[in-house]
């Protein structure tokens, strides 16, 4: 899923004041950011209360409407928001950056502000720790790396790791980060594919990745 983290309330409030917003639509998203506790119905309600409190103590007139469609990244769902969007000065979207841009495209002339920092494509462990799993590189090599992504799970995106900074399974960058290449090697061994590690992976073609302008895909 897309994992996001809500922006600090002071930053959000400053955006509201800077844009002279009196009537705000606070738009959540019922899919990815609901799972990462950043922008679901519950977080929309919590943020509404917090912003109202802040505005009151600040003497700022702020009227907030809450609305959380199933997904903000699909026009089919954002259209449900049309009336509420029209009635508001601006929308504060708690979806990922895709949702923010989809809303803005759907409602020309309306200011759509981001309330979430979109962080990663990741998943989480039972203790609510979200970890980045995929960088959407456009040419997946998980089949060669035991199903663990070297592009994002190695801090240097190495294709021939582990580097000399791997210690006790941890990355040189931080003892909180598992060394992606230790994970890959363990997994390859588990799959009895340890010997495949010895093959050199040649320089990568990054064209399918992030370096050719916005990527496009025609759906048939």
């Amino acid at each position, binding site marked *: 899923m897309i994992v996001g983290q809500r922006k600090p309330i002071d930053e959000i409030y400053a955006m509201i004041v800077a844009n002279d917003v009196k009537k705000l639509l606070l738009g959540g998203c019922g899919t990815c950011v609901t799972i990462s506790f950043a922008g679901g119905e519950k977080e929309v309600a919590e943020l509404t209360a917090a912003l109202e409190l802040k505005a009151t103590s600040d003497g700022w007139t702020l009227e907030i409407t809450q609305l959380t469609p199933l997904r903000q990244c699909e026009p089919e769902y954002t259209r449900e928001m049309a009336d509420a969007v029209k009635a508001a000065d601006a929308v504060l979207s708690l979806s990922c950056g895709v949702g923010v841009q989809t809303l803005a495209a759907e409602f020309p002339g309306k200011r759509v502000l981001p309330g979430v920092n979109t962080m990663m494509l990741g998943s989480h462990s039972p203790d609510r720790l979200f970890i980045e799993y995929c960088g959407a590189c456009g040419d997946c090599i998980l089949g060669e790396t035991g199903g663990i992504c070297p592009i994002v799970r190695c801090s240097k995106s190495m294709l021939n790791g582990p580097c000399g900074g791997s210690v006790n399974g941890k990355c040189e960058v931080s003892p909180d980060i598992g060394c992606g290449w230790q994970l890959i090697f363990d997994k390859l061994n588990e799959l009895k594919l340890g010997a495949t*590690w010895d093959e050199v992976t040649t320089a990568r073609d990054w064209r399918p990745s992030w370096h050719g302008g916005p990527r496009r895909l025609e759906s048939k």
Partner: protein
Amino acid sequence: MSNLQRVLESGKFAVTSELGPPRDADASVVIEKAKLLKGQSDAVNITDNQTAIVRMSSIAAAKLLIDEGLEPVVQMTCRDRNRLAMQADILGAAALGAKNLLCLTGDHQKFGDHPQAKGVWDLDSIQLLQMVKAMRDDKKLLGGQEMAVAPDLFIGAAENPFADPFELRARRLAKKVAAGAQFIQTQIVYNVPKFEKWMEEVRALGLDKKVYIMAGISPLKSAGMAKYMKNNVPGMDVPDEYIARMTAAKDEGREPKEEGIAIAVELIEKMKTIPGIAGVHVMAIEWEEAVPDIVKAAGLLPRPMG
């Protein structure tokens, strides 16, 4: 042919040293350090923004060394440049007279003075080795373009026997050799038993016959530095025995730096006895003046001149 390659091929125990360029534009710092190191080793590594701290370019500093009559080993990391910039710099370094290139992945930018920077990591060290080898041997750029005059470089790489998982450390060396490494400079050795174990695996894979392995040696300055390296530098293994010796030197009113040099010399003597070790790489980080004392005491002078 590079002087370093000639010495290694002659079968003599080779010595390289290291010079860290300054954090400003002062050429005289490089020239002074070069004068200290002249005649003390077969070639001098010039670090490339070591530990992700901005310093004078390794290639520019290498040129200053060449002008002083020394032979540089230009270090190149994959952190700060993509394949275009790296190839441009490799061609430029060769055009300026550099004959040795050490291919490194590089420390992560978070360790340095610009943790805000975007790391590049277009290639890793093994892919860099492949690229340089193809430039030299096939006269081809990575993109396929052929060239009339290829860079004639003796190609090196590093390896850290003390990083994990241990079982991959000799195997990773094999990948570097397959990719084009002709000489290896190891991480600084303090833990000799572990290093010997690694060398056993290296020999079992026949790698000592395919690549010249130079053991990394660095004099400890103080017990504090030893402890810092042990605890804060990932992949650095400093046994307590040496920390105790450095502490004792201080407590007994002796000069800890002299003890550090004595330990370095002992380590070099040990390295000479390990089968498959072709030389030592002496790194006295921001303490280049220690190098002459160490190589002299280790009986490695005079150096065979190229």
